[in-house]
């Protein structure tokens, strides 16, 4: 319920502000509209349970990237370069092409998930009260190894949340186990989980990204540095 409300609010906000980005004539206004889009996306991430990503979205996109955009626009004083809005054939064609693309992309969105695909969390529907299956146990231990979780921690923290009396995973029923798995997966957006997986499974890409950033840093300095030959002391 809450998720639906959030989705509707932030979805409309995102689409509306995205349209504003391409509709506004003043680049500063466009940039601000884009900031709003990023915020709505952060909201959507929160509603999807990706808290860490949401925070990083705000820090990186709104806090750093868009500020950089604003800086450049202001430094170059691009606000004065507002081109008069003109509608020509090329633009109409471009919009038609865009709408075609949108139609296909939306079609994919609808087709890709037709409601029958079942996430690994759910599995087949179990008879009420059936004991936990080995498949579910495997799934739980898989989650444990991915996120470096402790079975005792799961037993003490998560198991009581799905079934008040029980304290070990093995005693759960199948439906409770499904709940438990969903709960464990639902918390994958938490920073500690993200950190665990980022620094184990994705360590190499992480390091490579840092190299990318370093290269970008050097590249920017080289690009923007002026040769100050005339004012040399």
């Amino acid at each position, binding site marked *: 319920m809450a998720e639906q409300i959030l989705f509707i609010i932030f979805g409309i906000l995102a689409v509306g502000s995205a349209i504003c980005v391409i509709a506004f004539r003043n680049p500063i206004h466009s940039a601000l509209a884009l900031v709003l889009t990023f915020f709505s996306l952060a909201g959507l991430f929160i509603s999807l349970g990706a808290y*860490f990503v949401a*925070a990083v979205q705000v820090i990186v996109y*709104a806090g750093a990237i868009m*500020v950089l955009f604003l800086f450049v626009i*202001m430094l170059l004083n691009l606000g004065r370069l507002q081109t008069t809005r003109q509608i020509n054939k090329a633009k109409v064609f471009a919009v038609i092409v865009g709408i075609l693309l949108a139609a296909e992309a939306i079609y994919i969105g609808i087709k890709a998930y037709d409601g029958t695909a079942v996430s690994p969390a759910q599995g087949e529907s179990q008879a009420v009260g059936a004991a936990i299956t080995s498949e579910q146990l495997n799934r739980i231990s898989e989650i444990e190894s991915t996120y470096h979780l402790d079975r005792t921690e799961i037993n003490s923290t998560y198991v009581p949340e799905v079934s008040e009396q029980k304290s070990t995973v093995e005693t759960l029923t199948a439906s409770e186990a499904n709940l438990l798995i969903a709960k464990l997966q639902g918390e994958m957006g938490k920073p500690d989980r993200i950190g665990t997986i980022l620094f184990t499974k994705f360590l190499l890409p992480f390091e490579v990204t840092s190299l990318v950033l370093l290269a970008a840093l050097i590249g920017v300095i080289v690009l*923007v540095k002026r040769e100050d030959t005339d004012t040399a002391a």
Partner: protein
Amino acid sequence: MDLPLHVLIISSLIKIVVVVHLLLIGVMAMILAERKVSGWIQDRHGPNRVGPWGILQPIADGIKFLLKEDLIPDHVDKPIYLLAPAIILVPALVTCGVVPFGSSITISGYEIPLQIADINIGVLYILAITSLGVYGVVLGAWASNNKYSLLGGLRSSAQMISYELTLGLSLIGVLMLSSSLSLRDIAIQQGGYPWTWNFLIHFPAFLAFTTAAFAETNRLPFDLAEAEQELVGGYHTEYSSMKFAMYFMAEYMHMIVGSAVAVTLFLGGWQFFGLEKIGGPFWSGIISFGIFFTKTAFFLFVFIWVRWTLPRFRYDQLMNLGWKFLLPIALTTIVVTGTVWAFTQSKLLVAILNVVAAAIVVAIVATTLVMTREPEPVDDRGVLSFTEESSS
């Protein structure tokens, strides 16, 4: 532990109202305190006409702001001009949402934590919101369509972006040891005794954080953006009346919130020698809030104290301090804390080595700076000179 929904909503609403009002009252108190303290420091009386000892002075100021003519210059970009003061105020207010200002209070069986929302990414949330503060400045400066405003705005945003890095990085060490992003957890983990608080364990980080927090508020000695002598007030030159008041309030709110966060992260939050546990479930909450309030007030006093005793930095000095001293210190604390913690898990060792490493870094940087110092630039070439400082 989990509260019923209606209790949650009602208590949250009450907390929000209380916190917002506390902030507003705090701003007024700060205005008065600022003037009083500056008076003492400069050996004069300070405001003493309105009300007994001048305590009604902030109200008089407020009335003055409200009644002034609200000018909107012709040449401004109107929507953004109007939006900017709001944008700068909002982050300050919103940050308070995650700051725990007391332990918890029990009313009719419900234990209500003295914190609007204890979210598991609290510190990240604060960093995210802080990073937005720059918008208010930069947009206001640009929308004013005034050369001096823009210069001030660019200066201030460059400064804020630079110090934001330090602000974030100096917290990493703390986060590493507490292994939580929740402000409440971090506060509780520090315990009740000053020698177990984070500011001792992460002393260089604490210094860096505090300095960066000073810089983030754009106050003296970091008030290059306003720089009355050069920039006629900087980014808020074109603002008057209530909109100026909003900038004014935002500055104080930033101070208050920054102090509150610093107290939570480094000074043990609401805990003080077990004092917060005295009394029943109700009174202990009140007492803990009092302790938190006192600590924050002390921090705010330091803010004012620094403002009226330190001279202003020059712009290149400011950037040097940020990029060449504070940032390396913050990075060093990360490395040292991480390494030491991985091997020994001794907080004492972390504390000692942090200080030693920071001292070494400062010594190295200072030596390098002195060795490579070039003659001072003869003329001040204005706001953008920092990009060419090294080559000139």
